[in-house]
């Protein structure tokens, strides 16, 4: 029976090549976009080099001062002083990475300008983030306290600045007229991970701005790492308790707010979707679901339409099958199976195309140092979506078809 369905499904697909192309294109294109998009999201949100401890970490990317009287507020990353004094002293985190947002500096090689993104860090930065050292090692707490001009550079920077030299540890790199001695070289990080990405990492103590300045707002972020995942809620509470005691710098404001978030939440809270009251994840999920629904609805409607015209073309076949003993439900089953075969084909093509696209992106290094992979879960969900696709787009046309009277169906040829 199934073999017979398969035969006729393939025959029908071959007969109407253009329709088949449109249907398959719709399904595979939609699926490709979904898979590639989720590969990006997956890459940006899941544990990735060097941010491997995301599930037991909390991120402090901003602080906020709020005025109740005139409803004014000010948002900014925190100062080094604030993070060092209030966050580093918390009991639950085992390590706290403090680093600045990367900023562009200029280096010159043979009178040619090279833009280098520089990040100031503390020593625990190298413990929270698991960088892979190609040579050398990170700078130590002592070097930081001594204010030594030492640096860790990325592999890309090594190639761009030093060329083909086999080892560069101990050599000097000059950025914004400051000479740093290279202590280590790490595998490069893609720019999509702003908290760990930089070309040049140097101790916060060599920063030109005074890191000891006693303000709350500045240019630093902190990542707190708990001993285990189970400690994360406790860590969040401990931070909240500390924050509640802090008064804003500015007399105009009454309230000081800062929340330690998970990785994804820390980004969304700073987007228009989030606020200090809620991270915005639920809003984002909702928005994404609605978007997805519409995105999938288009090819589904398209398929429904094509299926109706396709099935009505086969009214003679429907009439004959009914005359020779197919009940309406058997026919509905047949057409749904045929449609599932079509969507399944589209599904496979979509997966193949996605695979090719991701491989191309990886091989051409479209986004430097970013390696995209097809997520197994996504693949599974995509397959499930395909089957739902196939069912939804097949059921209505099949139902309409099954209501066709045999006599009418046979006459219309």
């Amino acid at each position, binding site marked *: 029976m199934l073999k*017979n369905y398969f035969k006729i499904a393939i*025959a029908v697909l071959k007969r109407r090549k253009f329709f088949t192309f449109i249907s398959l294109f719709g399904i595979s294109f939609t699926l490709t976009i979904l898979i590639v998009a989720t590969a990006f999201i997956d890459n940006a949100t899941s544990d990735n080099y060097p941010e491997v401890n995301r599930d037991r970490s909390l991120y402090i990317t901003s602080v906020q001062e709020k005025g109740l009287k005139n409803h004014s507020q000010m948002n900014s990353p925190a100062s080094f002083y604030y993070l060092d004094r209030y966050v580093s002293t918390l009991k639950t985190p085992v390590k706290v990475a403090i680093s600045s947002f990367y900023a562009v500096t200029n280096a010159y090689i043979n009178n040619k300008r090279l833009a280098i993104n520089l990040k100031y860090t503390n020593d625990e930065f190298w413990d929270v983030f698991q960088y892979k050292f190609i040579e050398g090692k990170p700078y130590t707490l002592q070097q930081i306290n001594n204010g030594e001009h030492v640096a860790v550079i990325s592999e890309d920077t090594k190639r761009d600045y030093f060329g083909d030299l086999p080892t560069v540890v101990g050599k000097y790199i000059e950025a914004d007229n400051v000479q740093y001695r290279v202590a280590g070289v790490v595998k490069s990080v893609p720019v999509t991970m702003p908290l760990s990405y930089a070309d040049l990492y140097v101790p916060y103590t060599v920063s030109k701005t005074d890191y000891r300045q006693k303000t709350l707002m500045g240019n630093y972020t902190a990542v707190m790492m708990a001993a285990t995942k189970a400690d994360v809620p406790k860590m969040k509470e401990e931070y909240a308790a500390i924050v509640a005691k802090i008064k804003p710098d500015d007399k105009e404001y009454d309230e000081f707010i800062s929340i330690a978030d998970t990785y994804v939440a820390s980004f969304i809270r700073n987007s228009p979707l989030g606020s200090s009251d809620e991270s915005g994840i639920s809003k984002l999920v909702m928005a994404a679901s609605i978007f997805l629904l519409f995105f999938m609805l288009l090819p589904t409607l398209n398929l429904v339409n094509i299926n109706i015209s396709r099935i009505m073309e086969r009214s003679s076949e429907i009439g004959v099958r009914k005359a*020779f*003993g197919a*009940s309406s439900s058997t026919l509905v089953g047949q057409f749904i199976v045929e449609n599932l075969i079509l969507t399944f084909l589209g599904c496979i093509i979509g997966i193949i195309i996605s695979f090719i696209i991701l491989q191309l992106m990886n091989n051409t290094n479209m986004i430097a140092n970013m390696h995209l992979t097809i997520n197994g879960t996504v693949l599974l969900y995509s397959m499930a979506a395909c089957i739902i696709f196939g069912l939804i787009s097949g059921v209505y046309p099949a139902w309409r078809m099954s209501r066709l009277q045999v006599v009418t169906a046979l006459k219309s040829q």
Partner: protein
Amino acid sequence: MIQLKQIEKSYRTDTIETLALNRINLSVFQGEFLSIMGPSGCGKSTLLNIMGLLDAPTKGEVLIDGRLTTHLSDKQLAHFRNQTIGFIFQSFHLINDLRVLDNVELPLLYRKVSASERVQLAKEALTKVGLSNRMKHFPSQLSGGQKQRVAIARAIVGRPQIILADEPTGNLDSAMGNEIMDLLLHLNATEGTTIVMVTHDETMAKKTHRLVRLFDGAQVNDHTLKQVYA
């Protein structure tokens, strides 16, 4: 075998009601080859469709093999048709996307028959109609007469007790038409299959056992040509 009691069929549009069949009473006996004649639009095909349970009468009862069919569900009707009746249509109604063998297998798909047995039975049916060498062809590669022979093979593959043929020779030239007619006569004679045939062709009708004439939806003549049962 088939009993029609006070059959009426009317088609209703917004303004008028057309009576296609008017109080038809007709019995078809087992092993009989009956032909139905009449001018175009007199309700011949409608009558045949009602006999074949493809269409429901507005009034009246259809009994097949002594069984009342009025209240059968869609599923039961489908099963009943599958087991009891084979159809032959004027315009063949073969499925063009399927090979000859797959077309002939079709009625068996809706029975519990294994794939190998299906193929076996379909091959036998095709041999009976003399097309065993065309099994792998598609319908579009066949002549009209060959197509109709495939349709006959499809109608007989499930060994139904009744075959209903709606102008089976209507789309064929006389030579091919005669071939098809001979095939049906042979089937009736050797297998004892009850056949009801609608036709326009007087000479074809004369070859059958009994001729029923319809005019404007009513039965006007019932003429026994050959006495089958003494």
